[in-house]
């Protein structure tokens, strides 16, 4: 008997054939996935279509274009066109990944056709971001154990709350970071609890932080979710995967600064350390939320004017989640709200978009309360008192739905019929038609890119008003190029944002104040607070 024959007899095959390929094709997998999730798909698809329609309507007319929107749109353009992080010196005001993503959107947008205003194009990207966020809110709700109706409820709240409606359509870094943060949480609640998912959660959280640095505050929420959800035996590896992925991505930012020689402050360059110091300590504080006259209070009041229900509701439910056993799975979300409130109370500068990070958590918590109460009420094992309480809460929730729902719908319809942007667009059109391309104009960021596209010089033809001094930025490049400051300019466009900045930064922005004083109105658009004026500057004007 040969060795080979002997081996066959022993169950060993000396000449094995290729193993049969039993891998399942992609389309088959997609089909089985779709079949498995058919109920959720049936619920979510129409809701997402609704979200697209609502988010997209009246996009270019409301709300009025906001200065930051112009900043990010312009920097996204600089990435795409100049392959630089900003068209002025990049001074580490924010990590750049947010507008790099915005720049990526410019290609499909160019194919679909650009609109007249760059900000409107940017807002299209925000529609995508908010619809993705809405879908992720549903998935996260399901993974946290909510039933389909409650998960759908969270999605609807997230889409239709007037405050969310107003914030989600603006071109803001927070809106770009939110879907990444939600994706991180969804991955941290992965049913398979895999190491891959934990690492991917770290990557998503890292992208969120590099899109908007304030989201660093919320990374403990993802870590906690992961810790709660992970298996005891693989937990330390999952947390390591998360921490490593997040840490490495975030460290890429200081590494970039280091390699550029801009990490540590120096005499002739901007630096990351300076920028962090500025954002955390030196920037003009907007005062305490508790102080009636402060800027922070005004910001919070604009949020509450749009919708007080969701924010307060979310906070109350978040507080309950820490004590209620049936809402245990929602505790990381409640932690997110706690962190955001503490950050708000810290004082310092409170930016308007700060609330964006809270919206998905508030929506999920409110929906989670409904889900928990419905479950307790229908549970046979709960005590009668508990069931009574749950029933009462459910009734209260349904009643508030009856009050809040129509209120929201009414408010939404009103907002979607408003045209706040017209004065800005009209002023822009007037400048494009009447001002020679050789003149210099001080503008706010909203119309900068549109005017550059109209043929004005991007370096010294149109200039952001706060580049004239260092009240609100650390980049001296413009001041160096134009030594005579505001006297080098022929026009200044006075927008609501510009005037508000002057109010909020008393003593700062002196060149802008001087330019306004030495100028006369040549064209006015809109009325009241929304007025936009084009003013001609007299360089020989009286020394203010």
């Amino acid at each position, binding site marked *: 008997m040969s060795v080979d024959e002997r081996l066959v007899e*022993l169950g*060993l095959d000396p000449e094995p054939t290729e193993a049969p390929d039993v891998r399942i094709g992609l389309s088959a997998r997609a089909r089985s996935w779709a079949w498995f999730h058919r109920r959720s798909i049936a619920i979510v698809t129409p809701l997402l279509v609704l979200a697209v329609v609502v988010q997209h309507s009246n996009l270019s007319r409301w709300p009025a274009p906001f200065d930051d929107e112009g900043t990010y749109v312009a920097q996204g353009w600089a990435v795409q066109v100049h392959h630089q992080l900003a068209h002025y010196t990049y001074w580490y005001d924010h990590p750049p990944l947010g507008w790099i993503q915005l720049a990526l959107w410019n290609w499909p947008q160019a194919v679909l056709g650009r609109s007249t205003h760059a900000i409107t194009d940017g807002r299209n990207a925000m529609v995508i971001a908010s619809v993705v966020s809405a879908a992720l809110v549903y998935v996260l709700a399901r993974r946290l154990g909510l039933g389909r109706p409650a998960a759908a409820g969270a999605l609807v709240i997230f889409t239709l709350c007037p405050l969310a409606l107003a914030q989600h359509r603006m071109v803001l870094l927070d809106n770009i970071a939110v879907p990444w943060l939600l994706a991180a949480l969804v991955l941290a609640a992965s049913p398979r609890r895999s*190491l891959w998912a934990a690492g991917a959660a770290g990557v998503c959280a890292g992208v969120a932080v590099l899109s908007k640095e304030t989201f660093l505050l919320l990374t403990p929420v993802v870590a906690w979710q992961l810790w709660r959800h992970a298996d005891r035996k693989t937990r330390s590896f999952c947390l390591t995967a998360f921490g490593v992925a997040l840490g490495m991505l975030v460290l890429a930012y200081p590494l970039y600064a280091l390699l550029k020689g801009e990490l540590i402050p120096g005499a002739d360059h901007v630096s990351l350390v300076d920028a962090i110091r500025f954002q955390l300590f030196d920037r003009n504080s907007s005062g305490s939320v508790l102080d009636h006259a402060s800027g922070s209070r005004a910001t919070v009041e604009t949020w509450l004017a749009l919708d007080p229900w969701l924010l307060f509701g979310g906070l109350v439910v978040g507080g309950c989640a820490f004590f209620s056993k049936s809402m245990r799975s929602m505790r990381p979300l409640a932690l997110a709200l706690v962190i955001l409130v503490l950050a708000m109370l810290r004082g310092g500068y409170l930016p308007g978009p700060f609330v964006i990070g809270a919206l998905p958590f508030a929506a999920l918590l409110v929906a989670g309360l409904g889900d928990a109460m419905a479950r307790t009420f229908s549970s046979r094992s709960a005590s009668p008192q508990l069931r009574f309480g749950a029933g009462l809460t459910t009734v209260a929730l349904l009643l508030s739905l009856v009050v809040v729902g129509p209120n929201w719908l009414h408010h939404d319809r009103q907002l979607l019929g408003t045209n706040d942007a017209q004065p800005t667009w009209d002023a822009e059109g007037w400048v494009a038609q009447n001002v020679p391309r050789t003149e210099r104009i001080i503008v706010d960021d909203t119309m900068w890119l549109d005017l550059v596209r109209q043929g004005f010089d991007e370096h010294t033809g149109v200039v952001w008003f706060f580049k004239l001094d260092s009240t609100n930025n650390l980049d001296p490049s413009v001041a160096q190029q134009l030594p005579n400051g505001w006297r080098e300019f022929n026009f200044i466009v006075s927008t609501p944002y510009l005037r508000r900045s002057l109010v909020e930064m008393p003593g700062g922005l002196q060149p802008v104040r001087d330019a306004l004083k030495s100028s006369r109105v040549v064209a006015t658009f809109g009325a009241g607070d929304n007025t936009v004026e084009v003013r001609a500057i007299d360089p020989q004007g009286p020394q203010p």
Partner: protein
Amino acid sequence: MTPIAVIGLLLLSVALFAIAAATLWWMLHAWRTPAVLRTTGFEVRRDEPRCSFSLLVPARHEEAVLGHTLDQLADLDHPSFEVLAIVGHDDDGTRSVAEASAARHPDRVRVVVDQNWPKNKPKALNTALPECRGDVVGVFDAEDEVDRRLLRQVDTCFTTTDAHVVQGGVQLVNFQSSWYSLRNCLEYFFWFRSRLHLHAEHRFIPLGGNTVFVRRDVLQAVGGWDPECLAEDCELGVRLSALGARVEVAYDPTLVTREETPPTLVALFKQRTRWNQGFLQVLRKGEWRRLPTSRQRMLARYTLAMPFLQAITGIAIPISLLAMMRFHAPVPIAMLSFLPAVPTLATLAFEAAGLREFGRLYYVRPRAWDYVRLVAGTFVYQVILAAAAIRAVARELRGARGWEKTAHVGAHRAPSVATIDLRDGVGASVEQANL
């Protein structure tokens, strides 16, 4: 910097990243999901024993530890097994220790004298193979601490699966002896707890040198061990894999065979040189080319070349980073050159997590100092591994295939045992004699 230099460094970075990332992913195989962790665990069952075992213990200049090991093996909880101590004809010290043990356990322990010259482990094993009477042949090293319950579990493993080979777990446990023993212990931990399962799953497995059990008929049919290979264990595993053998990996922290790290850095260096050279020999021998699927062959090529890839990455990553900094590459390119540092640092973080897990499984509490040593020792350890890999290549090219044996002092044993060995002065003298 010239464009060609930039492109070259970029390609190097990407390659280094890929190698380090793949190694990391395979190192973490067992922890991919809780489900995988469960399946890679060893199902502890107590079936009626069905197999008989022949346990081979090759020993050379091991009088310090052999007696204890043989007594312990003779005392294993199983109705049907024999222990064959294999000693050299020129090694009277070890032989007398083995014969003393045989006299204490006449129905369990036998002594086989190996007449081959020059001597090595595969020749010793082949000498004993015809003497084996058990259905299954197991191999242990002279310094192994074997758990008393092991044989019954392995028996169950053979009878409940259709395995041809069962690889048991081996663990170095004296992680607090020195800075490198810590790293050495973790290497074993990740290899036996995790990586070997990946190999068993893909049916390509470089077997370990001990606590390995092979059906005797299979072993005889393939002609035993390769007498000229420095990594006879790996070679046998590759040869059996190519023939389609089914291997079960049985790792349970309570049942692992405990070993000690080499007593000195030089000993570790020599041991690693021998393994690397052995892997190189297996790679050159090319049995792995007969593996049925291309995926298996890729895994084989990669695994056998691993010591060399590891050596290259360990050295090349710092060098490429320095080059980038030194020559002021453009910022995006310099950023990309940091890519390989990502899996490298991640590996370090996972090693820390592994140390914690190791401590949990073996009821020891790593101190903060151990984590510091783990991190601080990384680079030097890499350099030693790289040097061993280079030395292995040099020796193989020169044709120097002598067996550089690792000495054992019993640092992994319960303190009383190790002290007795050392008090006799034997352990210390063996250490001297072998280095």
